[in-house]
């Protein structure tokens, strides 16, 4: 057996083209999965920690009822090892040298912020600084605009209730700042210990207590399990994932990475399957010879199993050797994008999928054809047995398909993804069957001649079986790659559409009705026209069909919207990004009814015709629900839960106006002039939030691009695997054609044409199947809408035709450069 073992060494294996393809495919599969898993884990950590800073913590607990939470809730959290912090938010009048101003106060404990940093400025023209804690007792940090509004200098004192607090710094940006429209007035930040002594908070004051929690995810989850039964309706537990703006971006990024990972594995698996089948076919003579020499079937089985294990080890080691530097590079890239160091975190769990991939690829894709080598008859030494080649192909395919969907399911955890891919593949196979039939029927009529076109067509017909199976693999490869490119494109477009270059980054709130025109003119003069202005009336939803709303709605539903005043509006036209899902938008002249946001409607269990009663000041307004609409909460434009028709239920109610607009960063000084001219209007600056979101989008985009590159590499390996599967036959054919008098140029042209046709057909089929898969994915996973992607539909078949034509040309290389005699001898 020593000689036989020697025959089976991996080093000798490497000289075989098919084994090289198997090993390269394995390495790519392991590398892709390991890189994606490692990077996804890293991205998750980075994104969550970067998004966490929007809460200044991992979780926030808000008490909107004006009462502090029981102290044992905090001690419980601390005893579990969580960090905690506390804030009190309220509005009050403050007094300075130049007068008084309504401000929004945030009083913070020493621990604030648990996540993220506060940006401050020692004086207006000084550089900005990042600090990790708020002002000490006795001091306040104020919004720079307040400095001018109250004619203050740094070091002056500011009168807050009964206290005079020293203005020690300017507050440029809070990590959790400015996301809620309730923050109407300029900000003043002080220490929480000073709050009582100001005497501002009295019984019944409008005040919000906010508690911050940070720590290990599982500990937080456990704590929440403990806390949940104790929460009252006025308590709101908020995590990054609940925040509407980021959760969708995060989820989509995660899903995309998983989808990419699954597809890479699929592609590599195809390559492994094709190459090992080819390898097994080529090994039959060796096996027959070994059997003739007396090796038993079981011995053959063992020899090949051992070899498979060696391949697996090579694949895993090689894959990790590719993945780790790549991951390191991606981590570096990430820290560059984020402009801060990112910890290189090697999560061991992330390596498990990689190992699993190697294992499944080998045993579901490579093993079946190789296992059947045991059954090769020794008789083969004397004469090949007809029908041997095709045997078991169906069983192999069935095992492979099952394994593929198992893997995809495992990685993406989404049955809909599996179903979409299955649908795409089924369509593809159906179309291929039809095309195959057509091809055979049509090409049968073509007869050869000196013409390259006819020779190519005849070639396709002659190799019809090989052509069809190659086409199937190419089409599938293209489908998977195109699906990924399409999903990536629509994902990125979606993000960009949500946040275009000049997305509104400032809100103007609290515009008095008689100031609307002047405000518009102010910004028009400065070349920054306002977007649509909306009236805003503050009111609570109090009754549903005549019953108090809190009784009408199930107690299990904790609905924030019921515990605070809602911003109600009226409008004649439906905002562009809203969509009616039930009922009708207000028609011309309609004055009755209210349009409700879809998610809230669902939570409240509303149906068309339900009567909603709002309490606005001392007035009550009752209107039937006439439509339910979706709202793009992350559009950075004013959005409303409740919309009335003009001259409808809100007529004569005390309204102020709200709008948003885009202000470039170098024009921000205009805000000072604006604040001086319109001191009662609040400016909400969300430019930094938009910057952060765009930053996250950029970093996710880069990750996606990197992974896409890996996947396209996998696709190329598949193509190479399939093309080289017929290499031997084609080279022999080429040599023979030349011997029989075929010219080089004819050979080159007809081969390139044949492959181009193959690639073109496969491209058309693959793209069509990809469109079906994307259509399904868009609806189920990414919530986007579907449209044809001409930018992919047209070039993909062309590119695939070109690539394959050159693959074909490349295959012919040895046939063209060597004398036909030498080649025939070599190929014998």
């Amino acid at each position, binding site marked *: 057996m020593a000689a036989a073992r020697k025959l089976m060494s991996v080093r000798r294996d490497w000289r075989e083209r098919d084994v090289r393809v198997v090993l390269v495919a394995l390495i790519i599969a392991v590398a892709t999965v390991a890189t994606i898993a490692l990077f996804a884990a890293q991205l998750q950590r980075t994104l969550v920690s970067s998004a966490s800073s929007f809460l200044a913590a991992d979780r926030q607990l808000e008490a909107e009822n004006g009462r502090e939470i029981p102290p044992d809730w905090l001690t419980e959290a601390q005893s579990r090892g969580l960090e905690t912090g506390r804030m009190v938010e309220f509005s009050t009048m403050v007094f300075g040298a130049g007068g008084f101003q309504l401000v929004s106060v945030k009083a913070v404990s020493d621990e604030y912020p648990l996540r993220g940093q506060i940006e401050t400025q020692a004086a207006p023209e000084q550089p900005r600084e990042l600090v990790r804690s708020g002002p000490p007792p006795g001091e306040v940090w104020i919004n720079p605009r307040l400095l001018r509004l109250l004619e203050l200098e740094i070091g002056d004192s500011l009168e807050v209730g009964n206290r005079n607090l020293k203005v020690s710094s300017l507050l440029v940006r809070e990590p959790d700042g400015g996301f809620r429209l309730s923050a109407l007035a300029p900000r003043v930040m002080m220490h929480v210990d000073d709050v009582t002594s100001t005497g501002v908070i009295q019984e019944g004051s409008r005040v919000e207590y906010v508690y911050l929690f940070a720590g290990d995810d599982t500990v937080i989850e456990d704590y929440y399990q403990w806390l949940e039964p104790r929460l009252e309706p006025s308590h709101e537990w908020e995590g990054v994932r609940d925040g509407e703006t980021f959760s969708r971006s995060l989820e989509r990024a995660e899903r995309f990475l998983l989808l990419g990972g699954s597809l890479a594995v699929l592609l590599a698996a195809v390559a492994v399957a094709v190459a090992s089948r080819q390898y097994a076919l080529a090994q039959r003579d060796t096996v027959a010879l070994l059997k003739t020499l007396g090796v038993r079937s079981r011995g053959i089985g063992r020899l090949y199993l051992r070899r498979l294990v060696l391949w697996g080890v090579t694949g895993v080691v090689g894959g990790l050797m590719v993945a780790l530097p790549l991951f390191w590079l991606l981590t570096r890239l990430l820290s560059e994008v984020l402009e801060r160091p990112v910890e290189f975190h090697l999560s061991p769990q992330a390596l498990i999928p990689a190992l699993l991939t190697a294992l499944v690829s080998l045993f579901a894709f490579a093993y079946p054809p190789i296992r059947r080598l045991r059954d090769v008859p020794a008789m083969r030494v004397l004469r090949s047995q007809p029908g041997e080649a095709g045997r078991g192909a169906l069983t192999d395919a069935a095992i492979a398909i099952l394994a593929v969907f198992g893997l995809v399911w495992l990685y993406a955890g989404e049955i809909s993804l599996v179903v979409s891919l299955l649908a795409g593949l089924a369509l593809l196979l159906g179309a291929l069957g039809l095309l195959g039939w057509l091809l055979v029927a049509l090409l049968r009529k073509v007869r*050869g001649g000196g013409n390259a076109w006819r020779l190519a067509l005849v070639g396709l017909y002659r190799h019809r079986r*090989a052509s069809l199976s190659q086409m199937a693999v190419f089409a599938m490869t293209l489908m998977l790659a195109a699906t990924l490119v399409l999903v990536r494109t629509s994902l990125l477009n979606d993000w960009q559409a949500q946040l275009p270059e000049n997305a509104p980054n400032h809100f103007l709130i609290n515009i008095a009705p008689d100031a609307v025109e002047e405000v518009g003119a102010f910004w028009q003069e400065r070349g920054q026209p306002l977007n649509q202005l909306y009236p805003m009336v503050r009111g609570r939803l109090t009754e549903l069909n005549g019953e108090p709303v809190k009784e009408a709605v199930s107690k299990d539903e904790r609905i924030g919207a019921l515990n605070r005043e809602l911003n109600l509006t009226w409008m004649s036209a439906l905002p562009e990004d809203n969509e009616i899902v039930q009922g009708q938008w207000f028609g011309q002249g309609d004055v009755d009814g209210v349009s409700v946001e879809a998610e809230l409607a669902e939570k409240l269990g509303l149906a068309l015709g339900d009567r909603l009663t709002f309490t606005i000041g001392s007035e009550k307004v009752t209107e039937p629900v006439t439509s339910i609409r979706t709202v793009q909460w992350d559009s950075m434009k004013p959005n409303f839960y409740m919309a009335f028709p003009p001259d409808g239920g809100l007529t004569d109610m005390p309204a102020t106006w709200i709008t948003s607009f885009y202000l470039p960063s170098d024009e921000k000084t205009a805000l000072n002039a604006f604040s001086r001219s319109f001191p009662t209007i609040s400016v909400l600056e969300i430019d930094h939030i938009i910057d952060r979101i765009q930053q996250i989008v950029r970093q996710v985009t880069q990750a996606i691009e990197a992974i896409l590159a890996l996947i396209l590499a996998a696709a190329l390996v598949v193509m190479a695997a399939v093309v080289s599967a017929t290499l031997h036959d084609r080279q022999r054919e080429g040599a023979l054609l030349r011997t029989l008098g075929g010219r*080089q140029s004819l050979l080159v042209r007809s081969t390139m044409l044949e492959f181009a046709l193959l690639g073109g057909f496969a491209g058309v089929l693959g793209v069509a199947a990809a469109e079906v898969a994307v259509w399904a994915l868009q609806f189920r996973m990414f919530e986007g809408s579907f449209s044809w992607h001409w930018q992919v539909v047209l070039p993909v078949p062309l590119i695939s035709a070109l690539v394959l034509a050159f693959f074909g040309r490349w295959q012919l290389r040895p046939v063209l450069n060597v004398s036909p005699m030498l080649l025939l001898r070599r190929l014998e």
Partner: protein
Amino acid sequence: MNQMTNVKADRPAPMLRVDNLTHRVRLETDTLTILQGVSLEINRGESVAIVGRSGSGKTTLLGLLAGLDTPSDGTVELDGAMISQLSEDERAKLRAHRVGFVFQSFQLLPALSALENVMLPLELAGSEAPEDRARELLERVGLGERLNHSPRQLSGGEQQRVAIARAFASDPAILFADEPTGNLDNRTGQSVSDLLMELNREQGTTLVMVTHDEHLAARCSRQFHIEAGVLTEPSAVEELTH
């Protein structure tokens, strides 16, 4: 025995004229001379056997005569064309129209049926009705019932018959055969060589055959011996000494 060689004057131009042909192969350390100063002339319609042991250089000589490779030195003139001066494409054109081949290992394309294998050179030569001609030839070699069988489904003898049909498909002026019976048993070999000789006669083709089978060689009008790359013609030597 050989009338042609006796009428040296005003005979037609030879089918094949080889002058001082030498072929060397460069190895890693030195150069191996495979053929050494080979000269010969073969007339139209002649059948010639080149006999020699394995490794004597006979297959290399055949390849050079057929223009499948180019010699290191010397010239080969095939049907009036100096093939060592032709480009690869010109040689291919010459092969397509004037030359047929029969190989020891048959060299049929496994993806093609017997019929398609025979059609191949006809298609390459741009024939009008390749299928009819191929069908006719396969019937002639006794395989009319097995047109659509793939090479795998045919015995060795049958495969070689397909190869012979393919070789005659484009009406070649000269046919090169490399050990045509080398892979066949005696009886099959006999019937294959009968077929080859018959067709050769019928078509008036010039035949150049490489073989180590003395019986087969004896059926040719002339024989050459090759040993260590040097070609001799025993019959001619005999004649001179007489």
